[in-house]
């Protein structure tokens, strides 16, 4: 074409005009820490396993999940999911049902028989793990995957610790627990049952272990002095729940009173109901708001007919089972103070659920340890005062939950691994947290949480069937897709689409994007319109 001068131009020639020079701020992509991950005691990378679940790749999701936690099916049932409390979606409609998706993935794995990948190489090191509870199993799993030979020594008759002896069946079916434990052992972890380690250093010498992780559970019930007649029937929660695992079911009678306000108290009260008690009453000295037990459990218990007497303490128990209860009131600091008002309560048995202690006798001969309030001091690397001796779970100062235990196990394993090769493990630096205000939630459709079905009341009070059911595949997928992917690019193409200067380069599926700073004018539209807050503006250095 014979084009007239100047008035007719060849297409696309403006590429010669590098508008990037106008910029005073430049956009940069970043990954922020999703609040769920931030809140998870087990350090799960929740957002990233949900990402796989969203596309229906459950195997990949499960593999990502189990990089941090070997017991998803268990966790999906018993975890108190602080992740959901932290979830940004909670401020939009309702938190993502992370826990239920985790359980779905765990159950899928069991159903389909997914296995862990064996360690790439053997390190030749031997590590002893004391206690087959959540913390011990977690440590053993991680250490094994890192290539070390691991042996667990467990005092009890079965592995699982508190997961088995503290948590009732109706919350955690035993076949689920057994299956997930077996999968860990299948990795080549050695387990010795019914052996109580009395002298840890001796045991290590015998077995010539290079290091040890101590994860003994808190199985000793705390006692409180309550004057009682000789015929009065008084038991402790730990033994009640433990005996539930044996053939000899505990005899609690028609009228059961449980003393205490923790989850264990609720477990016992609900168990009593299932054992046929017509009355199951919890006596607690503070108010519902101050109760350490999780509210959803209180709710379930109330639904099942458990009664709770708030602001009450038990003064004594007479032979014929009459309890004297004193009303309390909270002072300005929130502490319960006696009122001098008394009432009586008829009970066939009183179960004390006032907390538990750990048996630390195995440490008696170990020098250099600091022990306070019945727990062992450990460093940030989970190592006790004695080199090579690590500890976690109920044994160390911390909240006592399955999730925390699993987290300790993982953390300890990483440090043990480093220690064994004479190094120190430095955890990767944490990204800034992706707060709600970093998101542009307009792009997310409204989709409320999927409620997990629950067992009918009748069956709940008469059987030990699991109360809360799982999600099926479709609603698990739906739930996974409610994730906002806070702080992490999910390739929605918004930045690529909204740039008025075509200054965003799309690198293709899974490869995300990059900026073309030759043309980016720094308007910041991409930042405002990024739904998940994975871009930020930084000053241009001139």
């Amino acid at each position, binding site marked *: 074409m014979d084009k007239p001068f100047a008035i007719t131009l060849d297409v696309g020639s403006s590429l010669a*005009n590098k508008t990037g020079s*106008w910029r005073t701020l430049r956009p940069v992509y970043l990954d922020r820490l999703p609040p769920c991950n931030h809140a998870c005691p087990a350090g799960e990378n929740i957002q990233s396993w949900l990402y796989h679940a*969203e596309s229906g790749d459950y195997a990949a999701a499960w593999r990502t999940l189990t990089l941090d936690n070997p017991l998803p099916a268990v966790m999906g049932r018993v975890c108190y999911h602080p992740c959901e409390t932290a979830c940004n979606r909670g401020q939009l409609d309702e938190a993502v049902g992370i826990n239920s998706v985790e359980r779905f993935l765990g159950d899928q794995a069991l159903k389909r028989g997914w296995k862990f990948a064996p360690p790439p190489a053997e390190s030749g090191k031997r590590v002893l793990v004391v206690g087959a509870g959540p913390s011990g199993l977690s440590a053993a799993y991680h250490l094994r995957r890192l290539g070390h030979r691991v042996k667990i020594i467990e005092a009890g008759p079965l592995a699982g610790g508190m997961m088995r002896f503290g948590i009732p069946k109706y919350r955690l079916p035993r076949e689920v627990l057994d299956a997930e434990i077996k999968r860990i052992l299948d990795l080549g972890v050695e387990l010795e049952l019914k052996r109580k380690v009395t002298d840890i250093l001796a045991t290590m010498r015998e077995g010539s272990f290079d290091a040890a992780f101590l994860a003994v559970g808190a199985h000793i019930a705390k006692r409180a002095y309550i004057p009682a007649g000789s015929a009065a029937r008084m038991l402790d929660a730990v033994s009640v729940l433990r005996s539930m695992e044996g053939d000899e079911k505990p005899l609690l009678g028609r009228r059961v009173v449980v003393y205490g306000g923790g989850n264990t108290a609720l477990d016992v009260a609900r168990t009593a109901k299932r054992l046929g008690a017509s009355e199951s009453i919890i006596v607690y000295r503070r108010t519902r708001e101050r109760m350490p037990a999780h509210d959803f459990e209180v709710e379930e218990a109330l639904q099942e007919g458990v009664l709770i007497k708030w602001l009450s303490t038990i003064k004594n128990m007479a032979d014929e089972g009459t309890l004297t209860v004193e009303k309390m009131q909270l002072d300005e600091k929130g502490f319960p103070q006696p009122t001098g008002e008394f009432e009586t309560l008829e009970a066939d048995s009183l179960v004390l659920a006032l907390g538990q202690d750990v048996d630390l006798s195995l440490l008696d001969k170990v020098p250099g340890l600091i022990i306070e309030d019945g727990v062992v001091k450990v460093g940030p690397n989970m190592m006790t005062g004695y080199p090579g001796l690590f500890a976690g779970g109920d044994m160390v100062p911390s909240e006592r939950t399955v999730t925390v235990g699993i987290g300790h196990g993982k953390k300890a394993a990483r440090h043990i691994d480093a220690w064994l090769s004479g190094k120190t493990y430095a955890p990767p630096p944490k990204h800034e947290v992706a707060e709600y205000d970093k998101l542009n939630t307009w792009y997310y459709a409204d989709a409320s949480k999927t409620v997990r079905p629950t067992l009918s009341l009748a069956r709940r009070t008469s059987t030990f069937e699991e109360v809360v059911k799982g999600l099926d595949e479709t609603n698990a997928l*739906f739930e996974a897709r409610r994730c906002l992917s806070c702080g992490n690019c*999910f390739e929605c193409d918004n930045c690529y689409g909204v740039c008025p200067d075509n200054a965003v380069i799309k690198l293709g599926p899974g490869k995300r994007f990059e900026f073309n700073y030759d043309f980016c004018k720094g308007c910041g539209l991409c930042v405002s319109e990024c739904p998940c807050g994975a871009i930020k503006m930084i000053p241009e250095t001139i």
Partner: protein
Amino acid sequence: MEMQPIKFYQTATFTVGNRLLGEHERSVQANMRRTNSLNSGHRACQGCGEALGARYAIDAAMRASDSQLAAVNATGCLEVFSTPYPETSWQIPWIHSLFGNAAAVASGVAAAMRVKGQEDVRVIAQGGDGGTTDIGFGCLSGMFERNDDVLYICYDNEAYMNTGVQRSSATPPAARTATTAAVGTAPGNVFGTGKNVPLIAMAHCIPYVATASVANLRDLEFKVTKAMPIRGSRYIHIHVPCPLGWGSAPADTIKVARLAVESGLFPLFEAEHGEFVNSTKIRRKVPVDEYLSLQKRFAHLFAKPVDSTRIALIQAIADHNVKRFELLG
């Protein structure tokens, strides 16, 4: 042709792309091989809504026409920032003639294509609100009346921005421009009878009329894609914020456009052969204040004492739109 809402992809129902969707279901803008009809290096301001709207619309038209497209451009920002000698940002056959004749020039191009047996080449005319609703209005109406085979797209930024923000017939009430009262008891544009060009286009009973916004890409692309194959005159009126003229942050361009839609001040609807057929529902209704307060051109409404009277008048306009165009539920 029905708008297919994307179901079940909560994470990205309203985003540009969606890795969980099939290629064919994704927006043109999500495509790695999109035309970039208006390519990089143009001289539009930071966060220019018109540059964005033009690429959205023309890329969609390119896909719909299988790249058999020619465009006519009225004088205005779009023309000035896209083709200053010696560079052009257009990737398509494009011509600029005058401020007021884009519609007529397009009629001519369409006639030539018809007579040369190239009816597969689709013709688009585009201009700003000044070139469309004011100076180009006669040619536009003539094109409609002849039902010439042209898709006319108006990028409405509600004033003459190219010449330094003067009032146009598309300037909304109370908005400040260089040619509206700057001070006094009621600064800004008057609460006139208004001039709703989409409705005037409908009065010509042309096959298709629609309004769209840069804040709703899928809706915009759907309408362009629907309009392209129709023979005869078609009109799409796209709301494109102007950070310069509106006094909004460049980064807020889409946010502002979204609030115009969500408040009801800029209704998104479609009409066929003069009849209203449907509207795009408001997802999260907001009061007009949220929209107005982001823009310096309305700042005087919020200066102490807040001009609640005129804000209420604007709210009334929004509420009227919500009723008239069935924007809720």
